[in-house]
């Protein structure tokens, strides 16, 4: 009897898994982990489930979530972008510098953020596809270049005094919900549509899966790869803008080691580290897991040093589990 019940639970699980994977492109395990984590946090802290705190989590997740979109595109397409956090910092400084130092209006600040991000992504893509330098090295180099440039532009200081229009993008609360949460959800929906349902998205997964297959099918492999790095740069620019607006300043050290969290979120969300599989919706659940983890540790007053360690450990664990499952599926 017990055995039968177990078998049917098992069967129900695989069916649910298939539906979740095929229809919504979400890894069921990650959803379960998110709910469990939320349950534990709610049990440990009475504040966790308050509307204010849940909005806080979404707000804190917004920047990481937007970066995780970029990580998902690049990684599922068979690439890697380690420069996401640095480029995010550079974008924030570029926006603040444009508005404060140059005295240009807020829309120019937005353009500067997004432009700086896309420019960095463009350079990454050119170097990877034309110079033939491995993505790991190109984007590791960009991690240093972008961070250094942010420090040069800002002279190593935080740039204060943003115009109010820009600040609204980070601190505004239309309908009582922080503006970054709207930006985050809007970006995620567009990105999910693009990756899961358009030809561009399908080609991305096929390219990450097998470059030979993509070439044989007549896809323009190099051009597609470059587009993926520009998309990653754009998300870094958007994340930089949101972060800058939220803290009301251009901080050259913003986004330090955020690529670690963003990549972790993407992997937890079911993105194959070696390409061929990935889902933006999954990455958003991954980002929420990271957000809840950080928030919960904050509520429990755990030192932020330990949080870094937790994120690093989760990344390794997520890849470990993913690889085990991949081996299981092949066998």
């Amino acid at each position, binding site marked *: 009897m017990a055995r039968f019940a177990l078998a049917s639970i098992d069967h129900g699980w695989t069916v649910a898994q298939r539906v979740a994977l095929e229809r919504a492109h979400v890894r069921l395990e990650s959803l379960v982990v998110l709910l469990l984590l939320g349950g534990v946090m709610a049990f440990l802290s009475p504040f966790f489930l308050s509307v204010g705190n849940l909005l806080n989590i979404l707000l804190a997740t917004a920047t990481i979530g937007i970066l995780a979109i970029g990580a998902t595109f690049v990684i599922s397409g068979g690439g890697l972008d380690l420069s996401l956090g640095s480029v995010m910092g550079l974008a924030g400084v570029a926006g603040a510098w444009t508005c404060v130092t140059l005295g240009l209006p807020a829309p120019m600040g937005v353009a500067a953020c997004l432009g700086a991000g896309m420019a960095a992504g463009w350079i990454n893509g050119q170097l990877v596809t034309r110079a033939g330098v491995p993505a790991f090295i190109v984007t590791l180099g960009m991690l240093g270049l972008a961070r250094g440039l942010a420090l040069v532009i800002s002279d190593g200081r935080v740039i204060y005094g943003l115009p109010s229009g820009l600040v609204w993008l980070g601190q505004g609360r239309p309908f009582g919900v922080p503006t970054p949460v709207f930006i985050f959800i809007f970006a995620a929906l567009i990105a999910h549509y693009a990756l899961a349902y358009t030809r561009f998205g399908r080609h991305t*997964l*096929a390219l990450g*899966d097998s470059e030979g*297959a993509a070439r*044989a*099918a007549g896809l323009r492999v190099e051009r597609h790869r470059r587009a993926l790095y520009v998309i990653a740069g754009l998300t870094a620019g958007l994340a930089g803008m949101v972060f800058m607006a939220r803290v009301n300043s251009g901080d050259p050290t913003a986004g330090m080691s955020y690529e670690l969290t963003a990549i972790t979120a993407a992997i937890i969300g079911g993105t194959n580290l070696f390409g061929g599989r990935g889902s933006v919706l999954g990455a958003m659940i991954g980002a929420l897991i990271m957000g809840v983890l950080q928030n919960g540790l904050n509520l429990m007053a755990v030192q932020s040093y330990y949080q870094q360690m937790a994120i690093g450990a989760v990344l390794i664990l997520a890849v470990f589990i993913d690889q085990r499952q991949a081996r299981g599926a092949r066998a």
Partner: protein
Amino acid sequence: MTLLEVRGVTKRFGPVDVLHGVDFSVGPGEVVGLVGDNGAGKSTLMKTITGIHAADAGAILLDGRDITALDPGARRDLGVEMIYQDLSLAGQQDAASNIFLGREPVKRLFGLIPGFVDKARMDREAGAMLARIGARLPSLHRPVGSFSGGQQQSVAIARALTFNPRLVIMDEPTAALAVREVQGVLDLIRRLKAEGIAVILISHRLNDVLAVTDRIVVLRHGRVDADLVTARTSMTEVVRHIVGGADMAEAAAHESKG
């Protein structure tokens, strides 16, 4: 009348000369066997026809039109398809995604949002094509990487046939197959011919080549060594051209056994 004409194609990879001015042609609905020793340049020649490799010199004409400058996607659109020896499948994607890769049909979602890949239509048409070539897959929705070699081969074949090809190049299509499956591929080649589709068959299995082709082109050291009409040639003659005279009798005896 010729469908495909290859004129003086040369190709080198760094210091290695692979093709030294290859000329040959294929007529509509003609089945041409391309044979030669390892390293003779067979696969390289085929990849210059599909556009994966750019020819260093010479021209490739389809229906008299110069397609040398076109990229692989444009050549596929003109009806040049290839089934690669390594199959070139995206292993984590399902059968329909592989068959329609690069040619996904799109629709508007709710008549509003454009650019939605029409997966239902892809699955339907992929299923129909797989049924037509007599393939049996465990599921249309599983990643093709989980299929057997023969099943993956079916997906690669279906991909080459779905978009009304005029020329299908097959690079060692039977190398990894069981005996029964080999017969299936040979029957398929005959069916394509009957439909007026030209086939270039690269194979080491000379018995297969002699059984299904109209002509046999022997490539040796990057040149066309012989262009033989299958009905008027023999295993011995083909082997002699492949090995180039030396040890001919022994090699031919070995081949007729295998």
